[in-house]
């Protein structure tokens, strides 16, 4: 066991780089996915068939085929004749992840926008807001808090999908697990370490997204602000002790009763 830890400590710098590659893929993929999601999601809602039909086709295509097939298609087929497009492995990974999860996320965008109350649309029209203005100032701020929990799930899926990158020559966390296994010849140890690291990444991202969700909800007047959630307020702690049931911090009411 101590030898295992020594080998792991020796590989630590490379592990850091591997995690960085995984994070790069995640971040790049997520940004591209968000872009794709909004373009396709809004496109699918458009009234003209010229926008809605292609959006739906692209959406169904990337949702309907497997990520593995897409990533390898980009990596192995694209450099061959007749395309001769040789992409950097990192670009391949980011594009495949972005398109695949972007297609899933576009459905989220479409559904969330559709579920904004109809009266809001009518009110925005009655106030003579233009389509862009209406979407940006009225509809999206309300749809956004609905989208974030589903985006969180997709982001975790994206992190997990990024493990494929090891097979297109990228030295990500998955690759480092294999290296650690070679160094220690201990399968259980190396994979446990690797899976725990993936878990840590996913958990950190979940926490981050939960914070984002709290902020988005606060902006449309639901729930306390992020600062109120994070602050250690002595007044509230005492109130917590006083109540029979311990309250979760996020359920605490905003500091109306004599807070700072």
């Amino acid at each position: 066991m101590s030898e295992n830890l020594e080998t792991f400590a020796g590989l630590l710098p490379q592990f850091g780089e591997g995690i960085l590659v995984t994070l790069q893929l995640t971040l790049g993929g997520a940004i591209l996915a968000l872009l794709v999601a909004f373009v396709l999601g809004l496109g699918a809602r458009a009234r003209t068939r010229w926008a809605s039909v292609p959006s739906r086709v692209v959406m169904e295509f990337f949702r309907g085929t497997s990520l593995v097939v897409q990533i390898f298609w980009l990596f192995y087929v694209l450099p061959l004749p007749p395309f001769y497009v040789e992409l950097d492995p990192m670009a391949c990974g980011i594009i495949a992840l972005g398109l695949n999860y972007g297609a899933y996320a576009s459905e989220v965008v479409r559904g969330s926008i559709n579920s904004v109350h109809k009266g809001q649309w009518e009110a925005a029209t009655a106030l003579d807001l233009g389509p862009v203005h209406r979407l940006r100032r009225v509809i999206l701020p309300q749809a956004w808090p609905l989208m974030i929990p589903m985006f969180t799930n997709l982001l975790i899926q994206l992190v997990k999908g990024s493990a494929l990158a090891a097979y297109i020559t990228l030295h990500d966390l998955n690759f480092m697990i294999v290296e650690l296994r070679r160094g220690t010849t201990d399968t259980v140890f190396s994979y446990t370490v690797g899976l725990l690291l993936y878990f840590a990444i996913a958990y950190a991202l979940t926490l981050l997204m939960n914070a984002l969700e709290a902020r988005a909800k606060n902006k449309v007047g639901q729930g306390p602000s992020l600062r109120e959630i994070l602050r250690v307020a002595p007044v509230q702690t005492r109130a917590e002790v006083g109540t029979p049931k311990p309250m979760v911090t996020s359920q605490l009411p905003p500091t109306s009763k004599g807070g700072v």
Partner: protein
Amino acid sequence: MDTEFWSWEHAIAVLPELLRGLQITILATVVGMVIASILGLVVAIVRRSRMRVVTFPVGFLVEFIRSTPLLVQLVFANLLFTQFPSLAIGCVVLGVHYATYMSEVYRAGIDAVPKGQWEASIALDLPRSRTWRAVVLPQAIRNTLPGLGNYAISMFKETPFLAFIYVVEMYAAAQAYGGSNFRYMEAITMVGLLFLLVSYPTSLLVRRLENRLA
């Protein structure tokens, strides 16, 4: 090596192998889904228990399996249990991974059963097991069917991961053909099309089911 864009000859030549692979793909999906839907229900019921000694470890395990990559889990299990065939390991790992998702679907379904149903069962003095079997689950499972279908489709699309533990499913068959004939274009594109051909009608079916049950 010919450099034409698309050769129908190759596209047709690769088909029989792909169809053989498709059988394995579907087999893995079906077996995985059976495991996932049973284990998921068990996990969902266990997590409703009031004993923290039980719920805490199960909750952690579910979170852990859910947020680590399926690919890494597959390779790990395959290296660990060398005495079993890869296909069996693949099915079980797929099943366990998706059971963690399914347990959430079941949980939502069980939560959606109105509280009055529980109270009515207590009023009728039904034993706990009978309450679950005869009152709650029949209503809950009806709610979960669309979720089940959606996860079956996404599991179907994750089966190419099995290629990495040397199961010759559709994707591995295409790789093999591409490697021996230098025609990746047709082989891999055909795999994509076959996936679409199976998953799109299934997703339409699930959507109809969703509309009919809702």
